[in-house]
């Protein structure tokens, strides 16, 4: 198999094989209904506390919720392969590792983008959010890049899954951290200094800010820097996650822990 084929078909096949997300009974409740309610929850808390505009919470939560598919899907793919004891087989194929993993990451990114875009549109419609028509294209770009960067974090999470037994505990905690630190519901400049520093290095922080500015009428030129930062963060996490998994693979080969017992 050429690298390109490994990238596309290997990725999609493993995604479908390991992931019940494609069942409408999971997809619709967990990825379409839940994020809309998360948006509504924080919109109303915002109204109750009389802070930011509805738009603020719609954008923040729509993008933050992409963490669910990005983190869980990515982690499940790797952990699932371990559970089914296919990881060893995949790692010993002659296919080059990078396209292999990137191929697995791509459907995850697409999934994350779709979820964020859906809840952005639906949540926005419910609160009557006004967005200039020309902004939708750049917003889609910023959203996609955010999904990409969180998927990178998902790869790190997947690597940690080799040592942590209950991967869903870790994934949920990361979801919570993303809720608090990325300015999804609390403007970053209102957080304590140390939290602001952490925010800078998290996925979503810059993407959310970019989308907010675009929705307010900003131009793509204004937010290139933010989108670029978001992409960079994705690359760093992705590379780190990939390195971690390779390292775990080596450790696993030495200690025969590649497959879960």
């Amino acid at each position, binding site marked *: 198999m050429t690298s390109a084929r490994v990238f596309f078909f290997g990725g999609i096949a493993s995604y479908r094989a390991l992931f*019940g997300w494609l*069942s409408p*009974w*999971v997809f619709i*409740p*967990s990825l379409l*209904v*839940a994020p809309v*309610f*998360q948006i*509504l*929850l*924080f919109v*109303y*808390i*915002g*109204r*109750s*506390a009389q*802070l930011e505009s509805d738009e603020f919470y719609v954008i923040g939560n729509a993008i933050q919720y992409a963490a669910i598919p990005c983190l869980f899907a990515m982690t499940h793919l790797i952990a699932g392969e371990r559970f089914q004891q296919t990881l060893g087989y995949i790692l010993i194929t002659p296919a080059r590792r990078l396209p292999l993993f990137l191929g697995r990451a791509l459907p995850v990114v697409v999934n994350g983008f779709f979820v964020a875009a859906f809840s952005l549109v639906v949540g926005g419609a419910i609160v009557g959010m006004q967005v200039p028509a020309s902004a939708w294209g750049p917003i889609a770009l910023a959203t996609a890049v955010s999904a990409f960067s969180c998927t990178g974090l998902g790869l790190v999470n997947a690597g940690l899954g080799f040592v942590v*037994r*209950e991967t*869903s*505990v870790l994934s*949920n*905690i990361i*979801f*919570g*951290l993303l*809720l*608090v630190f990325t300015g999804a*519901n*609390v403007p970053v400049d*209102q*957080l304590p200094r140390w939290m602001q520093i952490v925010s800078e290095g998290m996925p979503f922080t810059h993407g959310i800010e970019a989308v907010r500015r675009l929705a307010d009428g900003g131009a793509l030129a204004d937010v290139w820097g933010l989108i670029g930062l978001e992409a960079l963060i994705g690359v760093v996490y992705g590379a780190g996650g990939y390195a971690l998994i390779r390292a775990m693979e080596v450790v696993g080969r030495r200690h025969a822990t590649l497959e879960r017992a």
Partner: protein
Amino acid sequence: MTTARLLWVGWLMQMKMLARSSFNTLLGIVYPLFFATVAFFMFRAGDDPKPLLYASLGAAVMGIWGATSTAAGGSLAQQRWHGTLELLVAAPAHFALILLPTTIAMATIGIYSMASTLLWGWLVFGIDVQIGDPLAFLIAVPATVISIGALGFLLAIAFVRFRQAWALGNMLEYPVWLVSGFLVPLTLFPGWVLPISWALAPTWGIDAIRGAALGGSPWEDIAMALALGAGYVAIGVLLVQRTLRAARTKGTLALS
């Protein structure tokens, strides 16, 4: 007497199992703290301490529903996967009496997160929650737990036919947090939402708990919560008969 024993033993066994799972304990305690932290930041903006107290108790009870909704939704599917569901159905005891204590146990575990949220609010945000009426509080909390457990029971049996029932239970986590008024006064909602809020026991439960802590009579709220809980159980019992009959006809009890 047998009924009481059955409920007690069922509750005890389920508590043992839940307490031995890091997913339920660690995550159950930590996860609501993230939402509470966001809420505290949001309500802290002004000078008035009352919104923070209001939010603190609300966030604390969110953990009880969080511990119940997904777990209850998926509990029968999980039992089916473990091969224990058919054993429970084959037993002579009434299935409702077997299922109810399990969902009440799930809600009981939520008390851990309630405690951790109040503690977190106090340690990190300086929210000092004084319990105005301790007796009423000590009654309001179990009443809320039991009525939320009853709602979980209804969910569990309503979703039993779905293999991915956990996802349906999970889907209801946010909506109940929203419309039960844990962090949002009901006055902010459009009129058509209110009957839904009133039909949910958690709405009355949080009112009772806030009343007991902050002043205000909780007794009517406690009564409403328990009455609704009894209603959920009654509906659930009717559903149990129908659902088990359907499962035995279609042969879906044991399929994993």
